């Protein structure tokens, strides 16, 4: 086991050497780059990385440039997890055969959007987790197919207006609730599953470091506020993220060994869900009289989930 990187404060953290360069094509205000830096900077170990097709991929490896100062691979939309699993298998084989060029154990991390994780790449991730590869899968969860212009995914929440589930004269937008990927991945028996948010950076680093120390496949669902598709000003990314975590729409918690749930962040002042919704253009239509009941329902859902998480934590299950 390698030594855990010590991080004293944000200044030190934000100025540590980057293996993900600021030179990339992500939108100003995109949370993806914050998340990626927080994951990469959480360790001093070598990294073998992958990205599924999506915003992160198309914005960071446009020939002849690369933003990655660590080995990185992209194959397709659905198979980024398996790309890293294949590399991890090769590392095991070459280590056993004594053919590694440097006898060091890198961390294997796959990044993918919610579309590439919850939808099209779901089977590949499930396979990787069932087989127990020593890897971390990080979902950059912006609740929409952002790279292709805002189509709904199975992570898109009820009432959100996406281009394939648009709000209209007779529709309030997306009709299905967000898929509970954390529960599904915990059910794979993963040693560590966590929901994190880049605005709560200490909390996030702790989760990532916990994940890096775990043996086996680790699942991280990172909330990634999307200025373009959630429709808020680029400078408001962290403010919106704070509303998401403090309204408990994105509760931060971890599940250890598929069994023990811990809440990892408890907001001092819980913000009404309505404030979170009101700050984003994708929910604008919900504030018409005919759809206000959906805001009430949403608050109830969030309360219920929070209650459920607390009960699980108390019961230590």
């Amino acid at each position, binding site marked *: 086991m390698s030594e855990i990187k010590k991080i004293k404060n944000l200044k030190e953290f934000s100025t540590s050497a980057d293996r993900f360069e600021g030179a990339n094509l992500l939108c100003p205000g995109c949370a993806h780059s914050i998340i990626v830096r927080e994951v990469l900077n959480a360790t001093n170990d*070598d990294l*073998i990385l*992958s990205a599924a097709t999506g915003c992160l*991929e*198309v914005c960071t*490896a*446009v*020939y*002849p440039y*690369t933003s*990655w*100062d*660590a*080995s*990185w*691979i*992209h*194959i*397709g939309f*659905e*198979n980024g997890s*398996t*790309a*890293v*699993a*294949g*590399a991890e*298998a*090769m*590392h*095991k*084989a*070459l280590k*056993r*055969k004594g*053919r*590694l*060029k*440097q006898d*060091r154990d*890198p961390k294997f991390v796959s990044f993918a959007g919610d579309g590439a994780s919850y939808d099209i790449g779901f*089977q*590949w991730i*499930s*396979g990787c987790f*069932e*087989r127990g590869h020593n890897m971390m899968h990080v979902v950059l969860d912006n609740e929409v197919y952002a790279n292709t212009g805002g189509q709904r995914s199975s992570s898109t929440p009820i009432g959100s207006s996406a281009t394939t589930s648009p709000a209209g004269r007779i529709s309030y937008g997306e009709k299905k609730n967000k898929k509970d990927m954390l529960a599904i991945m915990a059910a794979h028996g993963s040693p560590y599953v966590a929901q994190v948010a880049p605005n709560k950076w200490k909390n996030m680093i702790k989760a990532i470091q916990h994940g890096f120390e775990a043996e086996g496949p680790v699942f991280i669902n990172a909330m990634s506020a999307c200025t373009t598709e959630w429709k808020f000003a680029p400078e408001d990314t962290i403010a919106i993220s704070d509303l998401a975590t403090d309204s408990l729409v994105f509760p931060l918690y971890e599940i250890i060994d598929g069994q023990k749930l811990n809440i990892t962040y408890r907001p001092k002042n819980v913000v009404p869900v309505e404030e979170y919704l009101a700050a984003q253009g994708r929910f604008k239509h919900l504030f018409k009289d005919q759809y206000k009941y959906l805001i009430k329902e949403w608050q109830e859902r969030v309360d219920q989930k929070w209650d459920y998480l607390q009960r699980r934590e108390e019961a230590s299950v």
Partner: protein
Amino acid sequence: MAFDKMELRDIEVWDGNFAAAQAMRQVQIDVVAAYPITPSTPIVEGYAKFLADGYVEGEFVMVESEHAAMSGCIGAAAAGGRVATATSSQGFALMVETLYQSSGMRLPIVLNVVNRALAAPLNVNGDHSDMYLGRDSGWIQLDAYSPQEAYDLNFIAFKVSEDHDVRLPCMVHQDGFMTSHTAQGVKTFTDEVAYDFVGEYKPMNDMLDLDHPVTHGVQTEEDWHFEHKARQHNDLMTKVMPKIQEVFDAFEELSGRKYNIVEQYDMDDADVAVVCMGTSVETAREVAKEMRAEGIKAGVVGIRVLRPYPFAQIIEALKDIKSIAALDRSSPNGAPGMLFNELAGALYNTDSKATLSGYVYGLGGRDLTKAHLTDLYKELQANADAGKVLTPLQQFIGVRGPKLTFL
């Protein structure tokens, strides 16, 4: 962890699948990521048993689909080591996306393809539909007609594919059941000789070279995509065939078994020729000999290397032939057969005055009998005598009901 050598007899009785599995064991693959499918499953099972018995030291990753199998192979190959897998038919079809990705990323991976029909209707038997499906994917494609060749061509595939001037993945095809499940005598190498022929894997742009990070699988749009594809095509057109010939020569020196980019049987003085692939080559060779007793100077051309397409070798093999039949074991679904088109393409700007007719046969494992080929050679002789094709350009042979002809 040590692994054991296996003592083999000089000649073993193996089917094509086991011959391929043995070759995969002998080259000491670092990672096999695989998924079972009829009729290639015994390759994967054979390899799993070698692992269970301590004859293999690499990683064996049993994934959840063929798409994941090739995805895992791509990740492993980019990490930097010897990689192979096996599949057939629907599994091959599911892999197609990743076939383009692996070749476009210039990763040397060997894929044993045990040829089988494509659904619907579902069918487990051998035809060449999957082989044809892969022909534009940027892979090298070698075709084995027997278990011996399935064994031999695996070594050749690794050596060609992993060469740093080539760096392209390679398929080794064999006919489902006819080759894969038919046991024949196979001349073997010792483990040392087999491994030494292929040599130690030499990584290039390997992700696991941690001091030299690399980016694999970049984005290119209209500014660079065309150049990358053109470069890959250029290497397939100019670098691969000389390398295959070089490896064929080295292999002959080692084993005494000679392979040719285009195989020719009884072609020296032939007037009429059948061009085909897979196990049909052997049937055609027998019939050609019998036709000679009837006064028809019959020959056979077998395609050994389907991709890159042996344009010059085809022209050379067929330059003095008066009448040619292209035998396609895949439904062209609304076009002349692939071999018909590709032979026509090769011969069109030459001085050849040969007639060319196409035959579709053997779909879903239907037998191609000697009687079919006898009739076919007679048609070719009639065409040669008349100096034109007397039959329709496309005929289905061995199919029930009224004779099906087109064009």
